[in-house]
């Protein structure tokens, strides 16, 4: 292909991979946290809520730095994860996914929480009288009903993950093929003389991907909403 250099292709592919896994793995947690925030009253609820929003508020560089302090190979959490699970975030694409996931997390939680708050608990009661335990009620009733919100949140998170840069480059650096995502590549191009044209090309690509994801999400969410409306 003429349009993109192999290296750029790698960045695109990596970005997609990172965003995909970031969203996929953040999703269950986002659903759990959203449920917790929507349906439960507990001590420290506002604290959790604030914590979830933190990545939205902090400058990404700070987030990245905090990640580095927490999950770096020399850091306690990072070392523990590496020893126990052999899971290494530092300077791996997994770390990029972690950063992207964390940055998209607040967006996902917000969208899903609103969806959960809109589900009528009476339907869940009905399911429980029909023999479904709490977990089954969630899987068979709540989850299908919040699907539009989940889709919207997921794709928003995905789009954000595709665009995340500050935290990623600070946390896992910018290694082509390993941690160089599209935005990092854009950054790298912008740092050298004459790189603007290449950067622009990559911007266009990332916008196209993100927009596609976003439009897709709206369409999917609308379709799911229609389904859920019972018609």
């Amino acid at each position, binding site marked *: 292909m003429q349009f993109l250099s192999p290296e750029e292709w790698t960045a695109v592919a990596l970005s997609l991979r990172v965003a995909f896994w970031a969203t996929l793995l953040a999703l269950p947690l986002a659903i759990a946290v959203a449920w917790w925030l929507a349906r439960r009253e507990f001590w420290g609820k506002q604290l959790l809520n604030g914590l979830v929003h933190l990545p939205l508020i902090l400058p990404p560089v700070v987030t990245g730095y905090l990640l580095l302090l927490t999950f770096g190979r020399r850091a306690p959490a990072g070392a523990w994860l590496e020893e126990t699970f052999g899971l290494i975030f530092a300077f791996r694409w997994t770390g990029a996914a972690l950063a992207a996931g964390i940055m998209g997390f607040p967006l996902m939680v917000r969208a899903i929480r609103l969806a959960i708050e809109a589900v009528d608990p*009476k*339907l869940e*009661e*009905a*399911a*429980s*009288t*029909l*023999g*479904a*335990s709490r977990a*089954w*009620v969630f899987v*068979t*009733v709540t989850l*299908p*009903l919040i*699907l539009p919100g989940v889709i919207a949140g997921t794709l928003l998170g995905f789009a954000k993950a595709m665009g995340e840069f500050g935290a990623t480059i600070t946390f896992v650096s910018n290694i082509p093929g390993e941690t160089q995502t599209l935005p990092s590549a854009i950054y790298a191009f912008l740092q050298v003389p004459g790189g603007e044209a290449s950067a622009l090309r990559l911007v266009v690509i990332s916008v196209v991907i993100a927009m596609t994801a976003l439009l897709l999400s709206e369409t999917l969410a609308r379709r799911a909403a229609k*389904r*859920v*409306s*019972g*018609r």
Partner: protein
Amino acid sequence: MSISINLHHQFPELTLDVDFDAPAGVTALFGASGSGKTTVVNAVAGLLQPDRGRISVAGTALLDTSAGLRLPPHKRRIGYVFQEGRLFPHLSVQQNLRYGRWFAGLRGPSQAEDHLVEMLGLGALLNRRPGDLSGGEKQRVAIGRALLSEPRLLLMDEPLAALDGPRKAEILPYLERLRDETQVPILYVSHAISEIARLATTVAVMERGQLRKAGPTGDILADPSLAHAIGLRDTGALLTGRVVAHHMDGLSELAAGGGKLFLPKVPNALGEQLRVRISAKDVMLSRDRPVGISALNILDCEVSEIRPGRGPGAFVRLKAGADHILARVTKRSVNALGLAPGLSCYAVIKSVSVARADVGADVGTEASSDHA
């Protein structure tokens, strides 16, 4: 005893205190809005945890606070039909129906399902979505869904309240078949007397969180002392009659109340047992047998009790054959006719004053004691 309910619960504004046993069949909970009917039903379903109480169905305890037993809702095997249906909007009718079966460990299609689908007339709806259904269809699906989980007990909280007249009329026969064809005991909440009169074996009347009285439907509905709780215009006796003839002029003849009862044609076969509610307000009394009058039904009775109300009216309880009839007349008429217990008189009832909704299939007393 099929259901035994003993509950105590303290709300900020209401103290619930209920204790009654109900035999098999349909037990109706009746009472004004806010009297705590839904609370009782929710406690039975496990959706509300009462302060104290014991609930058992067919001998199995679902709740026994003194023994520390509080089964969670999904382990109670109870079918609950809610006023608003509460169908799962994301599932088709068929999937809704099978939802409970799946958790009861009953997979795949089954005879029970086919039978119920046929009985509730759901055949044509199976692939539709709940949003498409009319209110009446929704309730039928909700009933089917609750029943297909093979519950020990069926709870119905005003299942018809959200429906308009024609839709109500459409469902009532299904409920009668339910009562007669399945063995599941039913706890039925309603404040429509006509529904209760048609369906219930037993009625429990609630007032401000307390049980006022419980007993067989006929006794309760015709109990003048409950007339205020039930409503003056709704009080009336239940007559049981057998269809003896369908006449050419569109009338059906029943043997009831020790005489003949002519009603607009009923769909039931000859020999079938029906229960007919005769509102007390529709019964006219006469000392002599009236002649040249348009009313077709004139039953020979004996006054057994006269209970004057606070207003201008009085209830007159009459023995008609083996049955009882209740009449509501003015005190002025009681005096004018010189009515007194023991006196014989005639009850005059217009055929057309008996509403279609007040005639229903009867579950014979013998049959219902079989269930118990």
